[in-house]
């Protein structure tokens, strides 16, 4: 895990997008992909590079749901709550995951930064509802118990 923002990397990103303010969202996506969140330190740099105010970049970072200003967990679990998943009881899965990971109300990431649990509107795999994804890999027809198994398998792997 990288703690310090790599300035060479940032420079590479902004030059790739030609410092264009209209590419700011794409820049933020690239940065988030690397750090799994948007570190506060990038804001002054991006502001200088694109001419957008820090308040404007903060505005974008908080408008779009995919951006996170808090470090995300190493494992990212997305629970689909689209219509198809919702009617097939996706919320109990979410509740189970939160309980298992001891996430406090409102929190999405575990304190040890091992897991982040998010709700998404639709993953486009409605035929397999309810669906969750773990680090981008989809797990179809989930139940709370299967979710528990999945978590336990990860924690075991980690423990080894």
């Amino acid at each position, binding site marked *: 895990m990288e703690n310090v923002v790599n300035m060479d990397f940032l420079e590479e990103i902004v030059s790739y997008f030609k410092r264009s303010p209209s590419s700011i969202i794409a820049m933020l996506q690239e940065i988030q992909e690397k750090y799994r969140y948007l570190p506060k330190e990038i804001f002054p740099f991006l502001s200088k590079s694109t001419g957008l105010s820090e308040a404007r970049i903060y505005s974008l970072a908080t408008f779009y*749901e995919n951006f996170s200003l808090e470090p995300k967990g190493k494992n990212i679990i997305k629970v689909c709550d689209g*219509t198809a998943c919702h009617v097939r009881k996706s919320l109990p899965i979410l509740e189970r995951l939160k309980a298992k990971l001891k996430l406090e109300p409102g929190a999405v990431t575990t304190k040890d930064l091992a897991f982040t649990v998010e709700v998404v509107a639709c993953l486009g795999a409605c035929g397999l509802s309810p669906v969750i994804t773990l680090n981008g890999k989809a797990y179809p027809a989930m139940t709370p118990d299967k979710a528990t198994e999945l978590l336990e398998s990860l924690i075991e792997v980690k423990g080894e």
Partner: protein
Amino acid sequence: MLRSRQELKDLREKCQRSAQDEVRKILVCSGTGCVASGAEEVYDQFKAVLERLKIPCSVKFIEDGHGVGLKRSGCQALCEKGVLVRVEPEGYLYTKVKSSDCEVIVTETVQQGRHVERLAYKDHDGAVCKRTQEIPFFKRQMRLVLENCGNIDAESILEYLAAGGYKSFEKAIYDMSSQEIIKEIADSKLRGRGGGGFPTGYKWQQVYRQKLFPKYIVCNGDEGDPGAFMDCSIMEGDPHRMLEGMLIAGRAVGASDGYIYVRAEYPLAVRRLKKAIADLEEYGLSGENILGSDFSFRFHLNRGAGAFVCGEGSALTASIEGKRGFPRVKPPRTVEHGLFDKPTVLNNVETFANVAVIIDKGSEFYKSIGTESSPGTKAFSITGNIENTGLIEVPLGMTLKEVIYDVGGGMKGGKKFKAVQIGGPSGACLTEEHFDLPLDFDSLAKAGAMIGSGGLVVADEDTCMVELARFFMNFTQRESCGKCIPCREGTKRMLLILERIVSGNGRATDIDNLLDLAITIKETALCGLGKTAPSPVLSTIKNFEEEYQAHIVDRQCPAHSCEKLKKYYIEPELCKGCSKCAKLCPTNAISGKAKEIYSIDPIICTRCGVCVSSCKFVAIKEAW
């Protein structure tokens, strides 16, 4: 790099020959659903088996051709039965294929053309359906837009060419003038598939007329409706068809750049589109002076960052410009001042995917499908309590009943049909009285509904319509951009009222207040999404007011679905007074004396259910 029309034609012919040279084709469905079910593993296993058996296998088209073609196809639409594998030319469809099944498929079907019944699809009555077309789900469908989807390798431009790809584009640059292209589209009466059903030809004509340059083509792939994935399937399964539509649009209106805005939750679509765009550049089908003509066009791919509102046109263009996804007031309209303030054609994925067919086969052919005012087909996603869920494509104008029973296979588990919610969070619900309603733009509008995104959620007797309205309102409220007051504040108020009702705290004035808020938002909100946000509430109140009343007045949920309206009670005859439930109850809602009959205080009870599972005598019952 193709430099002329002839070079394109030659390449296409070469591809078609190679396609014919393949003795058999194995199509491993690689839509999001099947990938989730393990399509990649199955694909790798096929490759390994073929190699082991020394069967010449073409992974890449042409270059190492002949023998067996092994392809990653787009979505084959029976996601629940994944991984799906089809073997051509027999067309045998296998379901729930595991890596361990690959060998038998190769040795039986690929080598000897024999059907493996064990892996076949079995319909409702247990009858074996060998081929896709034999499955009732597909019988009434018409695959026009999704023609290639599931039939070709979604990642190969050469396969698309072999299937006649870029023929329409070729025709558009060499044989047709801008006006002729636009006239063909206008004559076909193609209407925008993104929701409103605006005539596409008319839109193009308006952009064509603008004197301001550059002009842009924008493809809306931000399919935000939770429960709809038609555009996702096209982008994943046949990306070139959509790109071809955009190229033709660019040629027609004189645009130089095309932007594709794809929802962030579709990583596979993004990957396939990236590949497709790179291939176009490589083959000289995008860039400067395409095929030696005077037409230049470049593609740009933008990934959404998680905002439903960006499905609204002006919010989408704002997002491409690097701004907050705020819709803006109109006028000026997008056709005059759209992306980067320039004239812009904005259509959705499915609309663009219709273009090539029209140019290729002509508007007369197109108009022969569907209805007079809504020609063509429409893709829908059917979900909910229905037998066959998934992606369907049917001619516009099919009746609701036909869609639900003939295509959808009727209600799941023999339950009673209650309603169908059409168009997602912007849509309305239709009931049994609408069974004969043709699903086309105008008939639905007359019934106060709209096709919207094309999501169909089927509700049976166990679905609480108030809860369904609350679910959609929760979604719209969470996704409201916050710009205009009616939507930002109004949807919040509506949600608070609905939450109150489903938790048994409804008030007598709630329905009136909901209606007042709904009308205010519908008439005054800034953008289309805001204006339609109250639709689920309005239509459920219209059709199911008695369910609302039951929640509010009687504190009951007739569908037995709202958890908070569930009550537990102890059957006096069964209770032995063992006190176990009272000891376990986390809120001390159960009281009584040992060896006597216990009782539950419904006000303190949180309906956690601990007592139910703890009672050895099954004395604790649910009541509604």
